[in-house]
């Protein structure tokens, strides 16, 4: 009351808070690693999209004339095959470029499948408590207890080797993370006043689940999904390396490594380059995921 009678306080009011999205962007921009990760991912996406145009050769066609040709800067290399050729004369650079298409596809498809299924299961567990919840969460506990690769191997062993089955196996292995996030979000949100208000207003369960609660767990889901892409790429490559994932002649990076193993002693490039591609891609997604988490999680903000 008296505040108006007295001098108006001129304690400076900070301007209107910045839009959340621009706040997010300025936080994200300040993180060098995250920006670098994003740039690498954009480049990879472009390479994958325009693989047909960019790649100098076919990734599958073999050329009897050029077995194990070294990269162009080494004795015996040529610029026609900038990164050399493999044991049956395929251009490594082209295979790597097409491999990017495959790896990104694996990462995105696996994570999409896993996130959608996991979120639905988590929402169901959180909303319908009781037996349903116990069954779902126990199942997830079991999945988490077994080493991820072992479980994936068992699944692939049953379904049979191949890219599709490997992707399905990795998606199952990743599932528990999303189920847990979604369920935790539901349980913490349903007790809050706005959900109670929506309930009182007569909102149905489905509406509550998807319109009220789901938007509140998108931030952790986005972060976990980004990190999940890197895990998916890594695990699928590991399965490929063990001969259980993508089968030759598909230019999947892990499968390429498996093929190259026996040439460790003779041709360093067939071993080094596909692995480097995996590392850079996985690192980029991890950097991006870390950056997103720091920018999206207000608790971690300074």
């Amino acid at each position: 009351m008296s505040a108006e009678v007295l001098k108006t306080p001129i304690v400076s009011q900070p301007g209107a808070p910045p839009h959340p999205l621009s706040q997010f962007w300025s936080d994200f921009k300040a993180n060098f690693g995250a920006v670098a990760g994003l740039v690498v991912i954009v480049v990879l996406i472009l390479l994958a999209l325009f693989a047909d145009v960019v790649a100098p050769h076919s990734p599958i066609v073999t050329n009897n004339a050029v077995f194990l040709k070294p990269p162009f800067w080494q004795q015996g290399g040529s610029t026609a095959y900038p990164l050399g050729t493999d044991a049956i004369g395929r251009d490594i650079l082209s295979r790597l470029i097409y491999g990017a298409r495959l790896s990104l596809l694996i990462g995105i498809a696996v994570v999409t499948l896993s996130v959608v299924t996991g979120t639905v299961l988590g929402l169901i567990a959180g909303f319908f408590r009781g037996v349903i919840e116990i069954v779902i969460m126990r199942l997830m506990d079991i999945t988490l207890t077994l080493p991820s690769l072992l479980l994936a191997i068992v699944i692939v062993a049953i379904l049979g080797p191949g890219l599709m089955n490997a992707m399905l196996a990795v998606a199952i292995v990743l599932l528990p993370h999303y189920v847990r996030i979604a369920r935790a979000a539901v349980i913490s949100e349903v007790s809050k006043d706005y959900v109670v208000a929506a309930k009182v207003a007569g909102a149905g369960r489905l509406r509550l689940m998807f319109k009220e609660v789901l938007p509140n767990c998108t931030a952790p889901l986005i972060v976990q999904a980004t990190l999940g892409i890197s895990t998916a790429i890594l695990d699928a490559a590991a399965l490929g390396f063990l001969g259980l994932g993508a089968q030759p002649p598909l230019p999947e990076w892990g499968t390429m490594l498996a093929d190259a193993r026996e040439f460790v002693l003779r041709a360093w490039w067939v071993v080094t380059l596909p692995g480097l591609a995996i590392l850079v891609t996985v690192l980029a997604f991890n950097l991006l995921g870390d950056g997103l988490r720091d920018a999206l999680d207000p608790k971690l903000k300074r």
Partner: protein
Amino acid sequence: MPLLEIKNLSVEFPSQHGMVRAVDGVDIMLERGEVLGIVGESGSGKSVGMLALMGLVPYPGRVRADKLQFEGRDLQTLSERERRALTGKDVAMIFQEPTTSLNPSFTIGYQLAETLHVHEGMDRKAARRRVIELLEQVGIPAPESRLSAYPHQLSGGMNQRVMIAMAIACNPKLLIADEPTTALDVTIQAQILDLLLSLQRDRGMALILITHNMGVVSDTTERVAVMYAGQIMEQRPTQSLFASPQHPYTAALLAARPEASDGGRLATIPGVVPGLSDRPPGCLFGPRCIYATPLADKVRPDLRPWMDGLIRCHYPLGDPTRDERIAADGGSAPIPERETTS
């Protein structure tokens, strides 16, 4: 030689808007055995200033002072090791949250003995005897059985007693108590204050009591420094400060006490303490002061001797010429009713 002499102490933290000052030009002089109160709202820099004295300003804060002397020794030129030998021994400090201030992973016996071991070089047996003695002195019943207790097993009041025992373990010459009762139940608050004061009297140690509670200050201290936004606004003997506050801020604080209320609504001070990065150029209290003039909004007053203490104000309340000077500086003459806001 005074026990403690601080001149122009400032503590700065880097931020997005450059360096910001949490403590700004603070002077404190303390004699042996004296009890000084430092009052102010939260964020006024009263705790940070004392942390600077202890060498405990959190990263990445920076401390500067023209003088930072304890018993005539310049704390700023002491080596790390010499300074550590002083902190915890001659100068000790207790904090607001006793339970989080004790390490949850160690027994209180261990944490108490550790101080004695480091500063007095006591062996286990001697330290144990002394710890039991200390726990008795701070009024913890059955001390032997508490030695192996963990902090989470004791109440907040008990933990604060443990903190006090730890602080007085090496007979410090100065004890700094930072809001020692704020986190405790009302019934315990008086007990802890009594304990602090009786220890202070018995040992002739100086005590700095940091609080936001004017009532606590009037009951316990001999001298008070009133802090606002990192600066000392007024520093005077307790009795005269309460009898005739000279700074408008002090007066407003006193008027806001529940005891000062005449049964109607409690008085409040409009506005908020300026944040670290939006300090006005003139008097820091100016934006909330009913007497502020265009001059006060431009020129920041210095801390200067006034009556029986120090003040940082262009127009102290007891100045017979203040109405004329306020008018001369372009301010409007205050209307009496405004002083006690409703």
